[in-house]
């Protein structure tokens, strides 16, 4: 089993719903993003092309971050998800330097508020209890492993059942994102990759990403 994702670029409208869903799901502090929407333009008027790339940790099969981590805090689960053990991270940031996709964030300011000087919102207060983030360590997208693990325990199928699927995927209003098992030849994501010739983002980095993009 190796969890993966397919993103249909023509469907993505750059609304950032996935970014906000991720923020809410993991109670991410200010200045921390586990996923981003990158937008650029190519060409000259009137032949202008707007490119929208929805990016996050690629959960690479051969991750550089795992190699360089001196403590073993960054490691790979059997299902391919790359995780960070906050209790083992020393905060050297070598993993952040080594990631060619720059998908990692460093949680530096534990006192940061979404509305500076106004105190914490109720949502932030709840987050500090429900999903505490250790200050001074690196963090990143974990494919909503909590949703996957709890879903599997309930007999649900990630990518099919909402409760077992990453928050960004189920929040997408255009259904541009698909989730599933890359090792299952009959999974929807494998069908999409085959039919629409899905390609990983910047394969030249040779890390074998688990996220594929299709037009």
């Amino acid at each position, binding site marked *: 089993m190796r969890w993966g994702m397919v993103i249909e670029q023509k469907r993505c409208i750059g609304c950032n719903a996935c970014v906000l869903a991720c923020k809410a799901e993991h109670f991410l502090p200010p*200045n921390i993003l586990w996923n*981003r929407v*990158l*937008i*650029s*333009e*190519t*060409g*000259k008027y009137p032949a202008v092309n707007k*490119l929208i*790339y929805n*990016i996050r940790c690629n959960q690479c099969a051969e991750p*550089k971050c*795992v*190699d*360089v*981590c*001196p*403590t*073993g*805090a960054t490691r790979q689960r059997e299902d391919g998800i790359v995780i960070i053990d906050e209790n*083992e*991270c*020393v*905060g*050297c*940031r*070598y993993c*952040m*330097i*080594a*990631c*060619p*996709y*720059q998908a990692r964030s*460093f949680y*530096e300011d534990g006192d940061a508020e979404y509305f500076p000087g106004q105190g914490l919102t109720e949502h932030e207060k709840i987050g500090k209890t429900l999903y505490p983030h250790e*200050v*001074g*360590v690196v963090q990143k997208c974990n494919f909503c492993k909590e949703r996957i693990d709890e879903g599997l325990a309930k007999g649900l199928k990630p990518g099919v059942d909402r409760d077992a699927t990453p928050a960004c995927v189920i929040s997408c209003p255009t259904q541009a994102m698909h989730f599933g098992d890359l090792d299952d030849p009959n999974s929807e994501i494998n069908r999409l990759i085959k039919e629409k010739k899905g390609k990983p*983002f*910047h394969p030249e*980095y*040779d890390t074998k990403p688990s996220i594929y993009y299709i037009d």
Partner: protein
Amino acid sequence: MIGTKPYDFMVKYTPQRDWIEGHGILIAFALFFGGIAGGLYLVSLYFDSLLGMFIAWILAMVTGLTDMAHLSKPTRFWRMMLKPRTSWISRGFIFIWLFLGVAAIQLAITYWTDGTAIETVFKVLGGIMAFGVAIYSGFVVGYVGAIKLWNSAIVPILFVVAGVAGGLALLMVISVGESFLSADVAIALRAVLIGYAVCLAIYLWVATYESTVARDSAMRILKGNIAPVFWLLVVLLGIIVPIIMLFTADSTAVFIISGILIIIGGVALRYSILKAGVYSPLVPTD
């Protein structure tokens, strides 16, 4: 990434900031101390300077402490030795600790029972560990494939040569009381400085045609915002002025001034290379 506009992040060339801004500047010093500690020990072995070996031992400790000071969780520092199979930071940290242990024993043996076979054994072991301390920082940087300027086989060589040059400079300064030793070190230093200049030139020259992102980084060093530090501190004061001084005079003042200039140039070299590291854009743009 603090300081990067959201719409620029990985859409344009994005500089690395984690290892140069704020607390990250300590990495530049750690790379420098590692190089000079290893270099000083090796040249002190060659010139048989016990004081040089002792200062190298102190500098190796400073390297470890600087590395630890950069950590946001310094009390977990021991964990950094757990992944030597794949991580160059882990390997480097082990080299530092082994060097500290071996060199401490060697220093004690040399001080009390000079000329024994066991002393030779520990000098050889200390030399191997010192070489590891000098070169590991080059591999830490050179392993990062995401930053094309750093991802070069020349970086470890450059860092070792710069470390040896810094080591010789420091040995020249601390041995000014022994004029014959300072003069010998100065002669060696001239040759090493020329080699260092050649390594640096080859490194940047290769970077300019290796890839567009490496070229962008090299141009930041040669013509961009890092150029004043590079040309003034690394090239002029760190290499050219000391070479001229060492070829034209051999007074104590020349040894001290040129030695200090080379050491400052060594710090500036690490700063320049770290500061110039940029990531290639993920999204195509005009």
